[in-house]
């Protein structure tokens, strides 16, 4: 296991699959006045009385095909339809890919957004847009890792930390499965960056790196060492200078010690304590599933934002075979997560978002595969008051463009922040003094409020 600050991740190296899709739409018509007023008020303050949501952000890096997951086009010609069939879900009229059967049985827990779109059909830019809610100001290449704006998770960390709403010893923003390409804190500074947890929670000896005491050291010995350190570390600290690097070491050290010794954080990370039946439900050998379980444990303990990064959804080639291999893993994990959250009453204040940086092209290429496609994609969203068993928006008959209720990544970002009780119209200034908004434009998606 390792904890680290963001590393990038590879792709454009094809694998994958995913499928399915939908039918009825919930809304998509004009706004009524009361709705408009409600939206405007939502800007000023987040929902009161309710517990603000924590977020589990499931990111399928590479851009999973919406055709093979949540937006199947069974009536389209074969070169668009693909090999997979669509199946009924437990909500009448909504159909998704045949390779997501378990997910189909929890359709009543989540909503499919079928009309979020953007024009950044490459990994870096799309990833940046979907992770931060902010488009890259300039075109960026396929392989680069860019940060022009803090990730939504970093803003969440900033909000919870600066408002004192975070429990002692808990990290405010966690990345499982390695760092996200654009998951960094940018101008908010490293204090709001993600705690990146790598490694394989499905393995029996999974431990979050450096949080558990190493062999031969118990807490008494750690405390003795700390005592020794405090007596020996006499380098002068600058009382007047908050940016004194020596003082930074003290504060990071204190936080590290809290993580090591805090029962809350340790317990949350200790997936071995989980009921074996629950672990089994997520798939005991299912790496992504165990990450989902770990994410549930973290939000349960009070961590406001957990992102899971799962790469390999860039299916230019071998689309159907890869999807047949990968979708059952996703299916098992995602359905288990929703069921588990629901059973524990956690779904009410946990927002689960399943997305990638873009969708795929309607036409199947010779690979066979589908290429990058920002204008069409599907996002599954559940919890925190999101009405389950619904579909918002639709793509056209070929699955290329939104045909109903077009939505933007900014709309999604506003929705997430709104559910978290974060004032997303707050203005920040970057290091150059340039004014920046958390989200530039957009509105919360009213069907989800």
């Amino acid at each position, binding site marked *: 296991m*390792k*904890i*680290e*600050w963001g*590393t*990038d991740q590879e792709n454009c190296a094809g694998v994958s699959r995913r499928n399915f899709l939908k039918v009825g739409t919930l809304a998509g018509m004009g706004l009524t*006045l*009361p709705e*408009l*007023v409600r939206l*405007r008020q939502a800007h*000023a303050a987040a929902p009161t009385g309710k517990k603000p949501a924590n977020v589990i952000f499931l990111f399928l890096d590479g851009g999973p095909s919406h055709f093979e997951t949540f937006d199947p086009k069974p009536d389209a010609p074969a070169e668009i339809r693909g090999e997979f069939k669509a199946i009924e879900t437990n909500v009448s009229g909504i159909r998704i890919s045949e390779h997501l059967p378990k997910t189909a049985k929890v359709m009543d827990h989540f909503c499919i957004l079928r009309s979020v779109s953007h024009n950044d059909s490459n990994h870096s830019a799309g990833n940046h847009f979907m992770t931060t809610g902010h488009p890259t*100001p*300039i075109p960026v290449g396929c*392989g*680069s*890792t860019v940060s022009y704006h803090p990730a939504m998770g970093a803003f969440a960390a900033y909000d919870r930390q600066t408002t004192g709403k975070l429990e002692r010893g808990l*990290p405010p923003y966690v990345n499982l499965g390695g760092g996200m390409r654009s998951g960094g804190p940018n101008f908010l*500074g*490293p204090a709001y960056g993600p*705690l*990146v947890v790598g490694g394989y929670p499905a393995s029996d000896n999974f431990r979050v*790196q*450096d949080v*558990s005491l*190493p*062999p*031969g*050291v118990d807490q008494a*010995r*750690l405390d*003795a*060492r700390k005592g*020794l*350190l405090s007596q*020996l*570390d*006499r*380098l*002068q*600290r*600058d*009382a*007047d*200078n908050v*940016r*004194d*690097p*020596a003082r*930074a*070491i003290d504060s*990071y*050290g204190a*936080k*590290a*010690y809290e*993580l*090591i010794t805090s029962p809350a954080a340790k317990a949350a990370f200790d997936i071995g304590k989980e009921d074996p039946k629950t672990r089994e439900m997520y798939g005991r050998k299912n790496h992504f599933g165990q990450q989902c379980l770990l994410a549930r444990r973290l939000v349960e303990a009070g961590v406001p934002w957990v992102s899971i990064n799962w790469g390999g959804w860039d299916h230019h080639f071998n689309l159907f075979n890869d999807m047949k291999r990968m979708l059952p893993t996703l299916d098992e994990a995602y359905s288990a997560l929703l069921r588990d959250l629901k059973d524990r009453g956690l779904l009410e204040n946990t927002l689960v978002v399943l997305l990638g940086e873009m969708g795929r092209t309607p036409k199947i290429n010779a690979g066979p595969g589908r290429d990058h496609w920002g204008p069409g994609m599907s996002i599954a969203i559940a919890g925190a008051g999101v009405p389950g068993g619904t579909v918002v928006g639709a793509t056209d008959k070929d699955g290329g463009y939104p045909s109903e209720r077009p939505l933007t990544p900014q709309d999604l970002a506003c929705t997430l922040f709104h559910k978290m009780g974060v004032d997303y119209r707050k203005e920040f200034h970057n290091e150059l*003094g340039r*004014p920046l908004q958390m989200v530039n434009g957009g509105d919360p998606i009213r069907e989800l409020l």
Partner: protein
Amino acid sequence: MRILLVPVVISVLAAPVSAAPRAAVLKRPATLPAAVLRSLEVVPASVKLEGPGAIHRVIVTGITPTGAIDGTRKATYRIDNPKVARISADGVVTALADGDALLEVRLDGKSARARVQVRNSRAVRPVSFLREVMPVLGRGGCNQATCHAKQGGKAGFQLSVLAFDPDADHAALALQAGGRRVDRVTPENSLLLRKATMAIPHGGGIRFKPGAAEHRLLARWVAEGARFDPAEAALEKVEVTPAERVVGPSQEQQLLVTAVYADGSRRDVTALTDFKSDETAVADVDGSGLMMTGTLSGEAAVMARFMGKIAVARVSVPPAKRLSPDAFAHLPRQNFIDDLVHRKLQQVSVLPSEPCDDATYLRRVSIDLIGTLPTAEEARAFLEECDTERGDSSTIPAPKARQRLVEALLSRSEYADYWATRWSNLLLVNRDLLLPRGAYAFDRWLRDAFQSNLPFDQFARDVVTATGETYRDGPPNFFRALPKPEDLGKSVSQLFLGVRMECAQCHHHPFERWSQEDFYGFAAIFARVKQKSGYPEGYTSIIYNGFDGELKHPKTEKTMPPTALGGGELSITEGEDRREALARWLTAPENPFFARAIVNRVWGLMMGRGIVEPVDDFRVTNPATNEPLLDALAKDFVEHRYDLKHLLKTIAASAAYQRSSAARAGNARDTRNYARYFKKRMPAEVLLDAIGQVTGVPENFRGHPEGTRAIQMWDSRLDVDFLETFGRPVRQSVCECERPTEGSVPQMLHLMNSFTMQERLTRDPSLVSSLAKSTKSEDEIVQELYLSALSRYPTAEELGVAKAAFTREKVTRKQGVEDVLWALLNSAEFILNH
């Protein structure tokens, strides 16, 4: 409808209610300090007023024995011919009738004079779009990046950022939106005026009141036909007076901003200027250009911006109780650096810290010059050498031993390893971009370059003019990593000129002088760099000069002539590689950027803060903290033929570099004048090597021979947990900012609690195991640990504390050693270079 209005009302309340210039936070002082004046000065010496109602302000300065004070608002004024002009109590002269007059200024028994000339006071001329209309919109904030200068504009109306494109702005106002924005028949009905005065709802709120001077001016302009004469002389620059001044706490200083036009005419635009202080607690400025200092001492830069042009006034506020010049008379001085640093310290009245002791110097300079910690033996030998030189073991520095140390360090092979690592970060030596063999070739070239101390002008020349094969030659890889002229332009500019131009690629930089013309002109130098595949096909690349290829300005579509930054076209001979001309310009001794950029970068790495910081971000609005020092370093560097080792030696020898990092009374807040050594975290590679060396359990790197240190690795993409945790550059851009220098929780988790650290402490063989097994006394063991980790002997007190760790209950001798070393490796004294 009533309901719908709610949000509108909210937005109005949230918007600024008036376009009136911002009031300063600081209050004007009740009284100005009494001072004995030696003389009085008035600026300008000749006040020229052109046109009806023209105004110009004067600045009155009283010269005192120790400096200067502002007398602009305290002086009495008299104009000998009151028909020609009048002057307000705060020094603004207004034209009345054509003629000449004499202005007499008196203050505290001294007097000064200025001529006043009024011309064309009766001339009737149309409102000038460039000189009058645009400044009003600018002052109203209309063309800020958050309002109508936002990309895509606001509410369908787009202005250029801070008026850099007057043609487009004129079109937007007078022609677009079906001409609704101006109504030449009934000017008051112009959308422009109705919006700005909130006669109809305006998202930006009220910008000025109906009937205000701005309103009248715009209405007149519309009535006159909303014209723009493109022949009007363009604004060339703005100047601010005084540009630099020491002002006591709680005092004031009037600023004068003068616009200089292409036809040579000058105009007082103070009242139309937007002022901003970067440190309002030190000095703030109001809309009239009156700057007020606070009670805190420090420095501030006041930016004066008019029509997109910027000038900066720098102000230092010394403490209320200034130190006597004697306090600075006997500071240790080693070379010219110290004269200039001390001059600045005296100006701000801050005393530097004491010199650091020899052990601290040894550790510091070893890390800074060769990225390598001294071993215990090296520390022992050096400290002994110092004692011998001094004749005792006090903490007075031993200058000769220090000098010999620097010479010795610079001749070690780690010197090349460390600086090549630094430069491979900046030059994108990244196997993902270059393939492993390309990265390896470039890495080798860099190590050779530093090993042979290649003069830096030659180094830059070799990089920017590189041709050849990426698998075989080093520098061509830079062009493989950056195949586009635009990327090369901005990367070369940031690397070798210290100028960040990326904003200018898409738009005029709102805070800078660089335009898209500048950007594409510079990038055009690289328009003919070509590459083709070498053999094996698809792997190695051949970089060559292609003799054709141009770069076009994306908006004007004009083919850009290759242009030096801030200067005219490059002199390129027929058929010559444009980059050769670039290299000539770059490395000419008179190049205004090159030497300053590299000395600042090196100074910043050594001293913990650049004279310009960030080190690769030179711009008007980011002024150097010590301009004369930067100039002197650059001059010395050029005189010594761009010799990097000479530069490092000069810095390492200075008293400024040799100060303690501990603050002394009054200098703890200094973060820019080098009153002490600024602590910094060891870079990831250096820290990893240091831990490996101290514990005797070095890291092994896959694919590299055993014993390879982190600063010797060629492969920056090799997955090494430690380096990821402590942050190493990803080598995707040439920005120095890619290297994280901050600490983090995971870093501390790693040092405190990781299995690998515990393994380094417990493994056999290791430093701990060999000490534990040895017959050494506890005192000797602790000494050895201190010398290894901190390059110094423990104090008696530390010895006592450490030894107590050996005798804790149920603790073996080995565990005791482990715990003491754990504590040392987790201390700020170890993690930081201090």
